[in-house]
């Protein structure tokens, strides 16, 4: 009880800190210099209809590489823990027939949707992460439906590694062929509003999507505990 | 020439010391209502030891102990200006001032202690520890008193201190700096091995203390030293506090003054000795560090503040 009271007290103080900002907050009426550059110059510079995607993939591409890395690290850690604690899970109850059938019906559709989302990331809301997450949800559904099903882990690792590696290579391509690391202007901007436009952005987003999908899937798989884990060495 | 003077000084002092010992023996006896030994008994004792034939030796340090001892005693005597103004009796006083004399006193003590130690007799060591312990405390008021009079006279040269006290009895340190004199005379008691500070020699009463193991010529040499050492010390006190002994027109008068002064200073310890019972060592250490030391400190303060 004292603990709760103390928590309330502390949070009240924290609240005053946050509200000290809110009390002087004024909603902007126009874009600031940076964001207005993004809105007004981006179509010419990069040619992506979705300005957010342009910011995410190119202007702040390093952040994106970073977040992919974070997911990668998370999945590696999950893999590591799995590897260290393998053979520690018990068999689970199988899903119902209805669930199994429904899941296998939905599985390709979800994958397709996920792919759509990241391929069109530069044109409409959505992108690599969203698409990747959708793809992972497909796998998750399958696993939930068939808890005891053995799913190969290596495939996801391969996808993850290849797409991550390609992402880095594309970044280097920007460095070598265009203005800087992760510059998407390696390819021509193409026609504004088309799928094949905005230079490397859709390409990058495809790999991001694959990578995120693979990463989240492998996390899910690892937590599920029925994969064979990584290659192990013993002294 | 100095060497001859020095040897003569030592020889005269030995004789004087022996006589003094005889007299003191008498005093002690009479106080205890005994008749006492013959007054020349010390002569007999010392000669007997010198000519004893049998002799044993515990080792080199044992052998050298008496040599150190006598070197120490004799050294003080010849470094001291015994009679002020007489080159005859101040043969090597040009070698050093009062500090030299004060420090040289320890040479004999140390040699003696080491010699006794090598005999392996525990009483020797016990007596030395007691003696050293008591000496440290007794010297403290003396140091204070000497600092006081050195400040007073602004010299460490015994000759000059004596010189400063000439002219009138009232020029004696006794009167010009009574506190220092009292402190020093109390310290004097501690170094004369008499009651109440003679527990040092207590082991002697079982056999005979540090010289426990000494006999024959070794003992003779120690006894010889024992006759001159207190006299030398007394002379120092006379020089520092009682106007010294200046060379008079006649040598006889000089000697009479010398005799009287040293005798009474010496007797001070004897009189106290016959009157007071003995302290334990720790008691005497504390005693010296209280009243006498306080007097010494006062003496310094008085001199320094010019009061």
């Amino acid at each position: 009880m004292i603990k709760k009271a103390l928590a309330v007290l502390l949070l009240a103080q924290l609240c005053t800190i946050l509200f000290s900002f809110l009390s002087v907050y004024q909603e902007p009426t126009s874009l600031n210099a940076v964001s207005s550059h993004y809105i007004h110059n981006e179509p010419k510079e990069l040619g992506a209809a979705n300005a957010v995607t342009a910011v995410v993939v190119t202007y702040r591409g390093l952040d994106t590489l970073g977040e992919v890395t974070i997911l990668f690290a998370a999945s590696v850690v999950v893999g590591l823990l799995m590897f260290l604690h393998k053979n520690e899970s018990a068999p689970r109850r199988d899903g119902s027939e209805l669930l199994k059938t429904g899941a296998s019906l939905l599985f390709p559709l979800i994958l397709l949707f996920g792919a759509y989302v990241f391929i069109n990331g530069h044109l409409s809301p959505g992108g690599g992460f969203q698409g990747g997450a959708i793809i992972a949800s497909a796998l998750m559904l399958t696993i939930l439906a068939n808890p005891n099903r053995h799913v190969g882990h290596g495939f996801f690792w391969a996808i993850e590694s290849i797409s991550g590696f390609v992402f880095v290579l594309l970044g280097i391509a920007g460095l070598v062929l265009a203005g800087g690391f992760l510059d998407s202007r390696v390819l021509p901007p193409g026609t504004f509003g088309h799928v094949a436009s905005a230079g490397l952005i859709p390409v990058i987003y495809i790999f991001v999507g694959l990578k995120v999908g693979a990463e989240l899937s492998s996390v899910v798989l690892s937590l599920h505990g029925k994969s064979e884990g990584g290659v192990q060495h013993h002294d | 020439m100095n060497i001859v003077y020095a040897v003569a000084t030592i020889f005269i002092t030995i004789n004087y010391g022996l006589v003094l010992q005889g007299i003191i023996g008498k005093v002690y006896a009479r106080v205890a209502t005994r008749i006492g030994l013959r007054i020349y008994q010390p002569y007999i004792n010392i000669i007997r030891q010198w000519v004893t034939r049998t002799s044993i030796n515990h080792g080199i340090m044992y052998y050298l102990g008496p040599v150190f001892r006598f070197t120490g005693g004799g050294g003080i005597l010849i470094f001291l200006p015994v009679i002020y103004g007489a080159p005859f009796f101040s043969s090597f006083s040009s070698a050093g001032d009062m500090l030299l004399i004060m420090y040289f006193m320890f040479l004999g003590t140390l040699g003696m202690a080491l010699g006794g130690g090598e005999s392996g007799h525990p009483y020797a060591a016990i007596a030395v520890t007691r003696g050293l312990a008591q000496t440290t405390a007794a010297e403290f008021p003396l140091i204070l008193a000497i600092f006081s009079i050195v400040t007073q006279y602004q010299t460490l040269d015994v000759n000059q201190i004596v010189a400063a006290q000439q002219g009138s009895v009232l020029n004696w340190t006794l009167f010009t700096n009574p506190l220092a004199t009292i402190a020093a005379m109390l310290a004097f008691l501690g170094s004369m091995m008499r009651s109440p500070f003679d527990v040092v020699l207590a082991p002697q009463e079982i056999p005979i203390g540090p010289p426990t193991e000494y006999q024959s010529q070794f003992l003779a040499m120690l006894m010889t030293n024992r006759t001159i050492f207190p006299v030398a010390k007394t002379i120092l006190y006379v020089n520092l506090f009682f106007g010294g002994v200046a060379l008079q027109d006649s040598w006889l008068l000089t000697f009479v003054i010398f005799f009287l002064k040293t005798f009474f200073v010496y007797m001070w310890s004897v009189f106290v000795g016959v009157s007071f019972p003995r302290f334990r060592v720790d008691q005497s250490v504390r005693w010296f560090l209280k009243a006498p030391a306080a007097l010494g400190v006062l003496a310094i303060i008085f001199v320094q503040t010019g009061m």
Partner: protein
Amino acid sequence: MVEPVYLIVVALGAAFSLGLLRKAGFVMHHLVLLLSLATMTAISAQWTVGLFTGSVSPAAIPTAGFSPPISINLQMGKTEGFLTLLVNLSVFLSSLFMIKTVKRRSVYVPMLMLVFASGLNGIIMTRDLFNLFVFIEIMSIALAGLIVLNGDIQQLGAGFKYILAGALTSGLMLIGIIFTYHTTGSLNIDTIANALTPELKAVGYAGLFLIFIGVLIELKPFPVNGFGLDVYESAHPAVGAVVSAGAATATLYAFAKIAIMSGDLFLELSMVVGAVTFVGMNVVALQQKIANRLLGYSSLSQVGLLVLVWSLVKWQNIANGDLIVLGLLVTHAFAKATLFWLSGIIQKEKIEDWGIIKQRIYLLFPFAIALLALIGLPPFPSFFAKWELIMALAANQSHLAIALILGGSLVEAVYLMRWFGHAFKNTAAEDETLSVSFCQLLPVFAGGLLLIGLGYPASLLSATASPIPWMLTAFVLFTFAMEFLPAKIKNIIVMAAIAWYGYPLLTTIGGYRVIFAGIFVIGALVTMIPGFSHKGNRLGFYPSLTMMFAGLIGIIEAKETMSFFFYWEMMTVGSYFLILRGKNSKPHALSYFLFSLGGAYLILAAFGYSFGQTTSVSLDTLSQVASTPYAALVMLFLSIGFMTKTASVGLHIWLPGAHAEAESDVSPMVSGILLKAGIFGLLMTFIALGDQKIGFVDIAYVLSWVGAISALVGNYLAAMQEDAKRLLAYSSVGQMGYALFGLSLMSHLGWLGALSLSVIHFTYKVILFLAVGGIVYRLKTKNMYEMGGLIRKMPITFFAVLVSIIALSGIPPLAGFGGRWVAYNAVIEKGWMLQGAIIGFSGIIAFLYLFRLIHTIFLGQLKDAHRKVKEAPLPFLLPQMLLIGLVMFLSSRPHTFLAPIGEIVKEFKPDGALTWTGPLAQSHLGYWDGVMVMWVFMGLFAANFALLFIMNRRAQPVKQFNIVYAAERPARPETTHFAYNFFAPYRRALGFLEYPLATHFFDGITDFLHAAAGFIRRLYTGNGQTYLFQIVAFVVVVFLLANGGF
């Protein structure tokens, strides 16, 4: 130049590609890992070299082909280059280290290591606020993964707490970032910094604060760092190393960026937090017994120090600030990494169990290097950084900062050196073995060598002082290289080197320095002779010894305060190791080290204030301080500092143990020679500053009392010892008390007395310690009551002791008297009678212990066990004989050394000099003719001896028990040898002098600190939720603190 962005690209590319190489096997994984890290190290090394040599200019690297603030940009300047090099190298070495130590190998660990490295490089290089956040998250997650390398529950718990705390702070940081974006319209750090007008600072305060506090918590400040400690404790040591060297470094730089961006808004706050962390962590660490957790405490305290120092540097605009911070940073990184790697080799949880390190004895070298570097001792970069820092702070009069930094460092030294003591002295269980592989050794030694190697460039960059003379240091390093040689050969080489270096020094140095140079050089040569009695190669002895003597010679040669202090510390370190070699010297060596270090810090502060006042670092201009308001303070600090070395009363408690427990040939060095360094320092101080008053109190007058009481207490305690070496050790306390007293008289005679005493004390104390050393060597005991009657077995030693105790006691005709005579003249001249009387009193007390020494060892009854004892070995006797020759020469011709010393003193104190007529010395009070005294003594002695010999040359030698013993003969020597509690009556009378006031005082301080540590560390409950509570509370409290909201 390779584009810096490759630092990130290489790491990530390799990490991703490892996924494809999952089945390629362990060798391949590590090959990829090490190659990538090596490439990254090479890239950053290339940039660092280029930038520091000026062949390339700092680069701003935009990404995506757009300039900031439109896109994220990276920066590669000097700092970035250096820091990336540092983190890449440490990650590389740690990865190398891991090869053999990780039990269950998988591809995941190399992957995480690479991701972690990319995070570190990103944090350092990026100039974008949000990007910084992303990289911090990358680092955190990779780190959290690396923590669970073994996957045990402790690691899981620690990892969870870590990620929980991280999630909380990163959330707050995100809010801060978006607030700041709103306020400034940019995410670029430089753009934000430029945009932040005072009004905007007020409006956007909450945002800036949240970013700041987020990064601050990432640095794990006290007391919100429980989660960090758990990480350090549970993580694999190689991971601990990269956390300490890599993560802490990168996060610190992130902190610096944020703090600069916020434009002085939080400097005071970070100073407070840094100071609290530094001191708090060091204090709490006192109670820590687990090695890795201790390293965690130490790391966090060092990070606190760096935050404090960095903020101070910015706040006060300290000129050489970057250098100071980088010096401390690089030292901390490599030292801590080395310690973690060592911990990985040792694999012992408790620091008490580190004794096993001695199975691979060479590991003690990097261990010691790392610890000393952490404490900031020479020749490591941290030493120079600390020096520059204190100089600057003192110049700016930042007293509190100086006190905190030095005080905290002292506490840090306590636990670090205690640890070293355990490792050096404790013995491991016999069945345990320590296995080491090349992959483990390489990082450890690379770390050690880097620390040494970086010291040199660091020393050149000092803004205040010219480079220190490196010659001596170079030789010290050389002695490390020749450790494999046999002891005898090393002995010859070192002696030759000292002679070769010392001789020209003696002939050229001049002034009062020549006296001390003589003691140090001749002393070194003489006291090294017993070293020939050692077999084997005596590992570690010669480097320590050379360090000590190089230090001693170095302080003589020093012309500037920095080189003086450099060699002063080097001497302390060397002597500490020498003392530590003794059998039971662990606690004593530690207390020696701590007192010395405390003293050294006072000296450092004093030099700092002196520099601040005079803007000069020359030792010659130290006297200019005398006319400034800081004169008294400088004098006081220097005096106390040097008095720790002379072991004046109150600061003496280290000495008896240290000197008594040292090895037989070390005791004479530390007691006879090393103590004189303190006298040298005091003399130097007094010459420069003279009489100074604090209020109405004359410092010299106070010191005279300290000296007198030291003499009294030292001598009294010496008389009460049963242990011969302790007796001699206490005797040194007393003797140095005399010297201090003499110096404090501030007169010609006082100084002459002190200096001649220093010379003479050197001779007889070396003789005595060597003699006793020889006896202990033969008898295997130091207790005097177990000895006795050795005069016949060891006549030469006896003779040596006899001569030296006569010299020590000051009895004429030997040389000690000269000093006494001069001293009393000085006292009377000065009029400080009471102190003088105490000095005199203690002089007589000296007889007590001297007699005890010679009697209970050599005289009395020989024990049955010692009937076959031989004379001490020749290497012990030879130096004694040489020194006896010296004593006898000085005794018979005292004017040959007193008069020249008098000439030297005249330069500073011309009044009241002695007049010499041949051997006759005259002061205005008295006179003394040493030669005549000698002749009289010899004449009398010869005459008496002749007389006695003629009379009883037939005296019959008798056996041991042939004594008058209550009409019987004693049966056992033990019952007859009067030795134990020798001065019992004296103890009854003056026992109060034994009351260990100083010991109780210092024990009280240590007890208090330990109790405080025990109390404070209850904060670290181990409950992750409590830690979160603390974090939220910390945020709130700091906010209120910053806004005066309480």
